[in-house]
């Protein structure tokens, strides 16, 4: 019996393993973002939002929903994917994946696919939570799902890279905490870039997160800080950069094999 070109059983085994790992802690995984979202709405949506009026023709409460989803999605995607590959490295069970007839592409597909699945579910749960606080109308639902999936996959890839390169749990937290969260706050999660003074607007456009949030917001309200095509290109670019780095890591065996 000769080996198949694509090890579908292998990909499914890893995917299923990762998803069932996520399901074991499903309540903790969902409770935190749900509570956080609710708190954001109490503070920004109601307390501050009621004095804010409209942003770009949308009530402030509704305006922050896409940014809020992105905020959680970024950090959760990175952390979940990082943990997914870091943990077997840490416990030593990675030996089995390395010695199995799975290609690096299949390994990435399975691990990142599983983490991205969790992220998409998480995004939808946050959206559902938000809809309890503000009425939400989604202008382009299919595009919304597509962006959600693409951005989840991208940040999971990013997290996968961090997981491979991390030597301890602290290192895994550094990038999400020190880089991604600030960029998200500064990237227009809670305001429109047009609300910034002109000089700061220029600075803001160097923040890649602006393009992601803007694109996702466009799917809700039909408008963003930048044209949606720009957002799409930026998101795809980020996706392929991560993919390239992962490919390089596997080709060189960096940090996975001696």
């Amino acid at each position: 019996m000769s080996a198949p070109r694509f090890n579908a059983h292998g990909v499914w085994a890893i995917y299923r393993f990762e998803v069932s790992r996520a399901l074991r802690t499903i309540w903790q995984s969902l409770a935190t973002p749900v509570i956080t979202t609710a708190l954001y709405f109490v503070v920004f949506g109601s307390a501050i939002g009621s004095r804010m009026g409209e942003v770009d023709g949308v009530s402030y409460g509704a305006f922050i929903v896409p940014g809020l989803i992105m905020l959680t999605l970024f950090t959760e995607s990175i952390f979940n994917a990082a943990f997914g590959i870091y943990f077997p490295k840490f416990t030593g069970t990675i030996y089995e994946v390395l010695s199995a007839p799975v290609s690096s592409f299949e390994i990435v597909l399975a691990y990142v696919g599983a983490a991205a699945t969790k992220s998409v579910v998480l995004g939808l749960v946050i959206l559902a939570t938000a809809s309890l606080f503000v009425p939400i109308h989604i202008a382009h639902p299919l595009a919304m799902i597509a962006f959600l999936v693409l951005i989840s996959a991208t940040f999971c890839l990013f997290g996968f890279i961090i997981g491979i390169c991390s030597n301890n749990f602290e290192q895994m937290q550094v990038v999400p905490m020190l880089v991604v969260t600030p960029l998200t706050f500064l990237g227009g999660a809670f305001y429109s870039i047009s609300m910034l003074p002109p000089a700061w607007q220029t600075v803001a456009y160097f923040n890649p997160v602006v393009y992601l949030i803007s694109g996702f917001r466009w799917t809700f309200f039909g408008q963003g800080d930048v044209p949606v095509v720009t957002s799409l290109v930026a998101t795809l670019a980020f996706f392929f950069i991560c993919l390239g780095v992962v490919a390089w890591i596997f080709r060189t065996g960096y940090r996975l094999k001696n």
Partner: protein
Amino acid sequence: MSDILTITDLTKTYASGLKALKPINLAIRRGEIFALLGPNGAGKTTLISIICGIVTPSAGSVVADGHDIQADYRNARMKIGLVPQELTSDRWETVWNTVRFSRGLYGRAPNPAFLERVLRDLSLWDKRNDQLQTLSGGMKRRVMIAKALSHEPMILFLDEPSAGVDVELRRDMWALVRRLRDSGVTIILTTHYIEEAEEMADRIGVINKGELILVEEKKALLSKLGRKQLTLHLQAPLAALPEGLGAWRLALRDGGQTIDYDFDANARDTGVAALLRRLDELGIPFTDINTQQSSLEDIFVSLVQGGKEARP
């Protein structure tokens, strides 16, 4: 084709600069049990890890059942099962799930009936729904074996299967290994327990400091390198060995009650007959006499220490 695994000029230098394997050349025969013996740090795990794809070789090639382990890794790896030296497990998984995972990972379609047979063979069937963290160390090692067998490999690597395993489980494992061999699986095991190699192996390889210093049929090895010991129980104790016995390598022990004579069993003249005659001439009567074959352990120690002399 009688060789199932061919290792050619395989070397490994770790990033630290440590040469773990000098060029290794070795052919494993289809259906044999091959024991790889060597002290700590000899390179046994490194060699196995390269063949299984966990460590990248610095140079050389390995062909498993006709498939190059790098160019055609999918086919090569499907043929190979590995029970690693270290126990690692996903604490929260159940026995059944982890074994099913392994089978899938190796690209095999689900086959619950086969997995049931593997688990029953290893006395794990009753534990199939238990989480791995609730199992004892010996049970975990059985699970590792079950995982390695889950995809029906033709070549099985057991890296120190008896480390931390009690006598009963070791017997069970030996029996299982024999059954596997009888079903056509080729088995390569590493061990520190000489009696394991002595009891199980068809051929033995000795590796030391990254060099394969010997590969031999076990039987041939035992007889070729084997030294024998003649033990004479004396009627009356001697205070010291008499001058007239200086031509033999003798040792007096048990308070002068016993004489040991160490000799090469394969020598044309072992010196035994002459020794007995001389004792008679000297008027030293003995009550009993027996000879003993030296064990693999003795051979092994003498090889690794690099000395030509088999015993101190």
